[in-house]
């Protein structure tokens, strides 16, 4: 288990040659179905690297870990925007925690690490 695509949100990246997640998955696991929605071939192969999660322009992809690792309901979404990535981590009771990670360019002089 790794990532789940919300078909109500995914638009197959519109007229793009291939969806961003299909382009970026390091295991070549994301494919485009005939209905122009992205899906993962097999979650057993997923490395949980979140490359697809972050690059999805519609935030249609969420990461969930297998039950042998973590209880169901803990879910991670993210979005790469210009110089940072924003994250939404949902815990098992539904509470959401938000994070930001600076990703490119000069970091703040005294970063809050």
């Amino acid at each position: 288990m790794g990532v789940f695509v919300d078909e109500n949100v995914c638009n197959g990246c519109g007229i793009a040659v291939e969806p961003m997640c299909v382009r970026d998955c390091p295991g070549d696991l994301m494919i485009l179905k005939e209905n122009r929605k992205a899906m993962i071939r097999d979650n057993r192969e997923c490395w949980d690297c979140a490359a697809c999660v972050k690059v999805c322009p519609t935030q249609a992809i969420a990461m969930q870990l297998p039950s042998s690792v973590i209880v169901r309901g803990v879910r991670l979404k993210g979005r790469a925007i210009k110089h940072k990535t924003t994250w939404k981590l949902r815990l098992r009771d539904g509470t959401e925690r938000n994070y930001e990670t600076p990703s490119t360019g000069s970091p703040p002089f005294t970063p809050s690490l």
Partner: protein
Amino acid sequence: MNDFEELSCDLLVIGGGAAGCVAAIEAREKAPDLDVLLVEKAHIYRSGCLAAGISALNAYLTPGETAESFLRYTIRDTHGIVRDDLVLSMAREVNEQSHRVEKWGLPIPRDENGHPLKRGRASIKILGERIKPIIGKATEASGARILNRVNVTGLASHRGRIIGAFGFHVRTGKFYAIRAKAVLVCTGGTAGLYRPNNPGMAAHRMWYSPFNTGAGFAMGIRAGAEMTSFEFRFIPLRIKDAIAPTGEIAQWLGAKQINAKGEPYLEKYYQHLGGARMTTQDRLYATLQEKAAGRGPCYLDLRNVDPRKLEGTTRAYLSMAPPAAMLLQDEMYYGRGGGSMAPVEITGSEPHVVGGHGLSGYWIDEKRRTTLPGLWAAGDVAGGSPKKYAPGAWAEGVLAMRDMIEVARERKMPELDEEQVLGERDRVFAPFEEKQGTPPRELEERLQKVMDEYAGGISQGYGYSEGELDIAEIHLRRLEQEFPAITASSLHELLHAHELMDRVTVSQTLVAHMAHRKETRWHCYQERLDYPERDDARWSVFVNSVRRGDRIEMVERPVERAALEVVLPPLADGAIIRHGGE
């Protein structure tokens, strides 16, 4: 039959990870008149080890450190078996290459004096969530030719010289034959040789990239390249279940390793191994010993850490191992923590063959030339120089490319041998011809079971003896004999078929190395239960191998110490061993 295309280039780079991308950029900058082609099986934006990001550069000389001090640290950690020439030449490049990647956009936080924030003597903090897209885009901007989605399966040769490579497109099935004046292999190390930590659905929740399957090792072994130190298996100590790096917690937060009784066990029970200053492998060994002594499991103690710092740690994990962030937060609120941080359980991972952390890989010279003329190696496929991590991979890619440029200028474009092209094409697509055969996933399960049980996997506490290795060897030979019966019904499964075959080939060389070294030099990494002591008088040598057909010939190479003195960790009887010096 499948589409076919022949390509030619002056400089061929196989693998678009850390080493390959920077090597290709170096080629464009230093030799814009030469044509460089980079071939990658996924897409260079997120391929290889750096896909999820990294939060530190672990081979960076902080103020006061030198290439020599880095070498001294490496020699001590590998109990003397290390190539001083490779470590020194790499260490002299790591800072410059790190600053180069910083210029492309990698954020490196600095203190008020302009120094990168230090995490350890040779480790600095970075904000590396997007490190791979940054490098990938710099590679595109350099003007290097990039061929994404082509999985290289083998090397082309002429009278012993490497003159190119073969591969297939994982989306279209087109077969590529590429000729080149100089070839760099940098496809990464190998995960998935052993049964992994997590089962079934979570099998790929592992530390190393599951998509690094030893293709570069396997193509070199098949072509007769000399390999070194496969028996030095790298097994990192990880956060249990998430199998994520512990350095973030241990180095950055200063969390101590404690046992189930809450004792700092490294200091309390293992002073003879060096206590808190023991080698990387001994930290893992001590953790296993605690379990055997009835004091397991072991943890990293986060109870006294400032919770605000833990939020920073969560962000760091999001930038390199997102599952660890999920686990950390879930544990903190709902696990044993009950609102504050509980100790985090630690465990050893599956064993890997990887030259960027360990010693194993191609036997190369200072210019990163392999023993096969025309072929260079860099990064995780290159042996003899451990602890290179990302900066070392960049350094090696650059060092290799500088020499390749000189060689390529002197050489004419080679011609491929048609028989070799057709032979490799048949081998590549054979799993499509076999309709009733065995799917690669089933053979992967068998490989991992054999390696786990008979070649010192997790279930065996990493230990093994000669009798078990003999059985492993027989099983691996049988697996190899079943290659013609492997079936694939899609291009993706064809990729798996080759990944599986490559891992079997790597395992055969690995087991031959494990059988040859008759001592225990590196606990857990190389744990011979039938020869439990370190034997410096006999085994202060590199164990190397060359495969010729079915036979794996073992050779030993001397360790040549640079002019510096290093005191190795003491032997079991307390004897002090010095290396080098007067």
